[in-house]
């Protein structure tokens, strides 16, 4: 499984691309029939996966029986009524036509009908006017920082970041935390623990387990990421043909340089093709995220959040005799994590809400919620307070967990309750 994971992940990335490529390779020939008119002749243009053949003097009824033999994918029937009746057009085929093809046909016909209706107003130079008004709009957002410098930002990127960071945090804390718990239970039920804590202190064993699992997990994570990236790159260069990726990557260094000089950056992008401009804009915006702060906060919140939850998980593991008994203790631990994740998702819609603010202060939820807030900009004092609270709480949790762990790990055959654990807290060494 460990080795298979990167292969699977690479497959998830590569396979859809391959499928899409295969689809596009299959050219669909479509017969276009109009009822005694040539109003729409040549309107629907050929695309790279569909060819439109305009037939005259052919009845739909006749072609219906023979179109497959004649090599057609389907028949597009357009009635002259279409100008007034939106649904006076249909496509006959043996298979469900792909959505892309339908959108292409709909778009082409709609544009033509609009053009013909405009024509009816008899406006001079209509074609020139039409060309002139054809536009695309993308809103650019600029965030004003303290020094008053405008920075291009992107809500999309902030949201994506918030989502990724929040979710990553949730996954790491939850997966590793649960692994710590299982490890503790295993040591307890196999009774290895008594031998080991006659050699080391219980808190050493507990912290060793927590840190060890984090390191193992992170190593595995790294290997997965590197292997996945490796496999994807190799497959991309060997299987997939060279495409637009190269153009974009060529234009990137130039944008990288201009990343800090916004004004020149925008003038440059104006000269580029619209798609490229959008991409480089996105790239600039990504560079404008406070990466240093994000990385530092991520490391800080990951370590403290993980230690906090893992120590609770370790305490639970020590208090029970087997995994099924963990249920009653798991719920109260799971709720804050799930809540944090939900608030983090909400944060992306409204980063300034007071719910987001308080959840990014409360240590049980702050690792996830604060990470989701940071890409949208958080005042420094809030981060400092949140971090201080986090340090104090995680210290207290580790201390308490160690006390419960020390007693629980040697306690067998007793059904443990929260009350019982509270009592263990007050036992002396």
């Amino acid at each position, binding site marked *: 499984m460990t080795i298979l994971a990167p292969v699977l992940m690479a497959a998830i990335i590569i396979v859809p691309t391959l499928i899409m490529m295969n689809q596009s390779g299959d050219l669909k020939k479509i017969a276009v029939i109009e009822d005694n008119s040539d109003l729409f002749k040549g309107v629907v243009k050929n695309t790279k996966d569909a060819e439109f053949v305009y037939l005259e003097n052919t009845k739909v009824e006749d072609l219906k029986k023979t179109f497959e033999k004649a090599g057609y994918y389907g028949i597009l029937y357009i009635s002259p009524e279409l100008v007034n009746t939106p649904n006076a057009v249909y496509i006959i085929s043996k298979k469900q036509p792909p959505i892309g093809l339908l959108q292409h046909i709909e778009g082409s016909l709609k544009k033509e009908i609009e053009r013909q209706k405009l024509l009816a107003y008899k406006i001079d130079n209509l074609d020139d006017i039409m060309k002139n008004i054809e536009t695309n709009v993308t809103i650019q957002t600029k965030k004003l920082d303290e020094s008053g410098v405008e920075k291009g930002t992107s809500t999309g990127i902030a949201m994506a970041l918030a989502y990724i960071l929040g979710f990553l945090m949730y996954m790491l804390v939850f997966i590793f935390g649960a692994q710590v718990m299982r490890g503790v239970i295993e*040591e307890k039920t196999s*009774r290895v*623990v008594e*031998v080991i*804590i*006659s*050699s*080391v202190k219980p808190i050493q064993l507990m912290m060793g387990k927590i840190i060890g699992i984090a390191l193992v997990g992170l190593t595995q994570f790294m290997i997965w990421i590197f292997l996945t990236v490796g496999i994807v790159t190799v497959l991309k260069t060997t299987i997939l043909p060279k495409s637009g990726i190269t153009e974009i990557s060529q234009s990137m260094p130039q944008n990288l340089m201009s990343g800090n000089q916004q004004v020149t950056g925008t003038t440059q992008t104006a000269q580029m093709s619209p798609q490229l401009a959008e991409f480089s804009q996105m790239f600039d915006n990504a560079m404008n995220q406070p990466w240093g702060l994000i990385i530092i906060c991520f490391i800080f919140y990951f370590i403290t959040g993980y230690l906090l939850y893992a120590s609770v998980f370790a305490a639970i593991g020590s208090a029970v005799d087997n995994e099924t008994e963990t249920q009653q203790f798991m719920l109260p631990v799971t709720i804050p994590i799930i809540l944090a994740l939900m608030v983090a998702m909400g944060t992306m819609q409204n980063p300034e809400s007071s719910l987001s603010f308080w959840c990014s202060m409360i240590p049980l939820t702050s690792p996830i919620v604060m990470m989701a807030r940071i890409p949208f900009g958080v005042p420094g004092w809030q981060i400092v307070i949140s971090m201080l609270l986090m340090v104090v709480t995680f210290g207290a949790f580790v201390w308490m967990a160690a006390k419960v762990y020390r007693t629980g790990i040697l306690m067998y055959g007793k059904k443990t309750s929260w009350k019982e654990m509270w009592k263990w807290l007050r036992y*002396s*060494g």
Partner: protein
Amino acid sequence: MALFEAKNVTKQYGNQLALDNVSISVPEQCIYGLLGPNGAGKTTLIRIINQITGPDTGELFLNGKKLMPSDVQFIGYLPEERGLYKKMKVGEQALYFAQLKGLSKAEAMKRLKYWFTKLDIIDWWGKKVEELSKGMAQKVQFVTTVLHEPKLLIFDEPFTGFDPLNTKIVKNEILFLRERGATIIFSTHNMESVEELCDNITLIDKAKTILEGSVNEIRSKWAANEYDLVFDGDVKIEGNGHYNILKQQTENNKSIIRLKTTSNINTNDILQTLMISGNIISFNPALPSMNEIFIRVIEARN
């Protein structure tokens, strides 16, 4: 000199008193039995000696010096509930435990090879623990307990799970370790092995020390004027004012009689009267077994 001493140790869990003012003193190179019914507090005392948990009050001394956390390397502990990592290989695991006790890898390897060969488990070196039989796993754990040559060894029920042959092998190893200078604390319910191995014992019941001292002294003290007498041939004797006959039977042309003297009468006087009845082969004080003493003491308390 006492190698290990616990003075006035008290330990309380919540409302439950696990140890109440218990003291033990374990002489050097002695096999010291720690006896008592289930739940008496033996395991708590053993855990305190191992510094797994601390006493509420009381002091512990190793070699006359206060017991320190770093002293764990001088102590070897075989818990009652044996445990090894099931998925780990036998050799790797033994090596890991040895290093936990402060041995270098090379030294641990050398000693492990020696012990594994000696106990005939070397073929199992590369196997996973879950593949071992219970007895095999116990041998592995025995080795990891004694490997760092601790001055003080603590065995909690070391013989459960062994067949008679392996019990003998392990027994001999324990005696061998004592020869080489180790002091052993030995907790068990098996009173035969107590008689066979232990020099001194402490009996704990309901958190308190009930009985303490050398096995021989305790047995003599509890002998209570009973004697075993063997005659050649079929001989019947009657009780008189000086002694009562507890039981008599004839086996293989020998009469075995147990009698109890009623007062502190000189044994020579009794023998003189008995000699008339027949040819005496042996006359011994009838020592009660540790088993009997254990049962009588505990029952007397309830």
